[in-house]
């Protein structure tokens, strides 16, 4: 059981990141993917445990699709309800490129503080 403060922080961080990661996964993929498949890819990439709860990616997929960043089609499935397969649109690719830049600069900015802090602590001790 992890600390609820940690969980809350992780959840707040994830807010915008889920969309970025989903767009990136779909941009990498050569084929259309459905929700469960995407969830499993994320988990596999991170040693079987995704930092996102997989249930949280579905509403984001739908939101991206509503924003025309993804298109989707429905395919019947044997195991359950028909699956919705997603594919990234051209608009999605250009948004992804912008978001990647934003993410890179945000990460560098945050790193500048969090890493100098460890350096300073390292120096002072």
């Amino acid at each position: 059981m992890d600390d609820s403060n940690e969980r809350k922080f992780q959840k707040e961080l994830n807010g915008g990141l889920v969309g970025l990661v989903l767009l990136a996964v779909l941009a990498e993929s050569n084929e259309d993917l459905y929700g469960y498949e995407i969830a499993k890819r994320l988990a596999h990439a991170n040693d079987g445990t995704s930092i996102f709860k997989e249930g949280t990616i579905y509403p984001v997929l739908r939101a991206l699709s509503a924003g025309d960043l993804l298109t989707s089609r429905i395919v019947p499935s044997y195991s359950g309800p028909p699956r919705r397969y997603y594919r990234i649109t051209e608009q999605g690719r250009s948004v992804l490129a912008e978001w990647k830049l934003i993410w890179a600069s945000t990460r560098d900015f945050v790193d500048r503080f969090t890493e100098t802090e460890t350096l300073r602590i390292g120096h002072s001790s």
Partner: protein
Amino acid sequence: MNRSAPRSIDQYLRQLREELAGSDAALIQDALYDAEEYLRAEVAAHPDKSESDVLELIASTYGAPDEVAGAYRDTEVKVKAAMATPRKMPKSAIGRFFGVFLDPRAYTSLFFLLLALPTGIIYFVLTVTGLSLSAGLLVLIIGVPFFLLFMAVCRVVSLAEGGLIEAMTGVRMPRRPVYQGKALSFWARIGEMLKDPRTWTTIAYFILRLPIGILYFLIAVAGLSVSLSLIVLPIIGVLAQAGWFGMSAVDVFSNAQPEWVFKTEFGIPILGLAGVLLLTSLMHLARGIGRLHAMFAKSMLVARAAPRTTEAAGSGAALAAS
């Protein structure tokens, strides 16, 4: 957290439905659909494990029902906020009255009123044909499968109608169909369908949509033609004054009645002003009708916390009653 962890897909979906209680019916339908897709795929991916073993781990992968419910609510709020174009709405009463022209929903709602007649005719013909053919063929064996086919078509059309209404009025409608349990026999499925009140409200909606569509179409066409011709009147007057029609304004309006309007200085401009007011009122009316109609459609086409089929039906009903 304080409740027992779900041990079956049906239990999970029931808990998720409970957690989402009070949310938009369309959002609930989508969330349940997504969860069912994931859970059934997960169970199918582990043929060596039982359903309850798979469900035991679900809280750490898919997320517990309360977490997932929270994600849907948050995303919905964020998306709504992000998609809504920020507009500075005029504050004063006059500004608010004429501000309707800045609202894209007013235009799309007006378009929906015009579209309501052709779509209403299609729904009416579809429903009446389907119902009468089903009834007529009932004495033959193909009557029952025909009724099933007819209902399947109705569900698809109701989803399309929902999409149309959402696009035109901005009111959230379901984007996923209700998933019918698979493990039902042919006759059990017919029984479920006949018992499901949504079957009958959907049929009633499609039949009512024709008279409603006629009314909407009348309002839109009458409102538009009267207000637009009133607005154009002073323009014609000015053009005639300038000799555009080869005669004077007096000639153009010489036969127009009543005289006190057409033969005075201010009569015609006042008519134009009345046209502008009428057009603005029509836009308000269209937007209002659009919202009301969306609420009506949602109550008829979207099941609110409908109990699940098969063995969950009993407990689901008990849940709804409690």
